[in-house]
């Protein structure tokens, strides 16, 4: 959807149009869900957080100033903050899940799944595990979500130059880790 169309929808949402908000949901739901799932493995939690993001977006739309608005970066910022709030909550109150009696507990060094993946994928996976979070974030926003430098800068609350530098360092670090594996 084009920027103008999105801005028009936002104007309607500000007036209280739920149908317009539904269209915005259809536009952004997939992307935001993938963004959340990149950080949170639990699918149920990811769905809950997706719902929370859009409810917050509805509440925030009323007070939104449309002048110089980038709705994409704005809604990604909400998702970014919502995920951070979730991690903070989990850190403070760790949740335990009761064990089912017939649950198969997979051993740490179970190689059955690993054989299905290619060597490259495994290497990427291990390299990402070693990459710092701030680099992972910028790679995710820039390459997976395909956001612009300016949009990424707004979400991460940095300036464009910092984002470019961060991205450059992230790729370099990933390459370095990858080659050492």
């Amino acid at each position: 959807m084009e920027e103008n169309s999105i801005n028009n929808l936002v104007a309607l949402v500000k007036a209280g149009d739920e149908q317009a908000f539904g269209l915005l949901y259809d536009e952004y739901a997939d992307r935001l869900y993938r963004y959340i799932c990149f950080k949170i493995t639990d699918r149920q939690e990811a769905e809950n957080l997706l719902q929370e993001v859009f409810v917050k977006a509805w509440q925030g739309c009323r007070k939104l100033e449309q002048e110089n608005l980038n709705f994409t970066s704005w809604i990604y910022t909400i998702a970014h903050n919502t995920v951070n709030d979730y991690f903070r909550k989990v850190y403070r109150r760790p949740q335990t899940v009761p064990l089912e009696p017939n649950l198969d507990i997979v051993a740490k060094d179970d190689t059955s799944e690993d054989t299905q993946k290619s060597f490259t994928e495994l290497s990427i996976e291990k390299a990402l595990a070693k990459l710092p979070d701030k680099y992972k974030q910028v790679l995710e926003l820039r390459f997976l979500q395909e956001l612009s430098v300016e949009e990424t800068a707004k979400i991460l609350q940095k300036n464009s130059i910092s984002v470019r530098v961060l991205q450059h360092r992230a790729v370099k670090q990933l390459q370095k880790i990858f080659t050492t594996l």
Partner: protein
Amino acid sequence: MNQEELIRQFKSYSRRQMPPLSLSVKEKVKQQVLNNLSREQYPEADIQRSPSWTFVFTRIAVMAVCLLILLTGSTYASFDSLPGDTLYPLKRTVEDTQVKLTQNPVAKTKLQVKFAEKRFQELESLEAKSPKKIAAPVITKKVEVKIDTPKIDSLTASPTETEKLETEDNPKENFAKREISRAIYNLENTRTKLEKDGHTEEANNLNATIKEFTRRVDKHRERKIVPKEKEIPSLEIKSSNRQKETKHEENSKRHRQ
């Protein structure tokens, strides 16, 4: 591996790891979001925010009980208060309310007499408490000395004098006296009303009571003391005896002659 290839591998890996949002899940979440929106639009429909009426009534009842206890305590404490005390106005208000609420004219009269009597008791309590300064009496005695008697240093004195017991002006006592006047005034009004309504006997009884109260008021205003005439026994007796003797001598002389 160069950077471009690495980024490409990274993208393909990540997309494979992150499951897409299925249509069913997408619709389910959309419905949940829209339901939340409806609730957001009508916040007053949120039952949790509406006041619990039980809680409100309980609060009102507790406040009413506390107020009642406070009033009762204050009223009880005001019973022994005197003019000038903090709770005295409350005492007077309670008494006035009692009188106003009494419909029966005879019962009303009895109440007013009872409260007027209380005003006198209050004044007496105040007078008993306050220190009285007695002005030094100014006495000048005058004794007329007779010619035959040897000269004596004369002292002048008046046979009757008014010795006034003066008290300093006490605002509380003055206030109490004004309250008494007010009580008597009310009784006079009540007497007139009793006469108009045909309660002659009660009106006459009340009249006697008013007179008694007025007399007591006068008694409080001024006290008169008449001192006794002092005797000067030695001098006067001597002079009179002498006079008698002189006369007796004269008479006896005449007889002899």
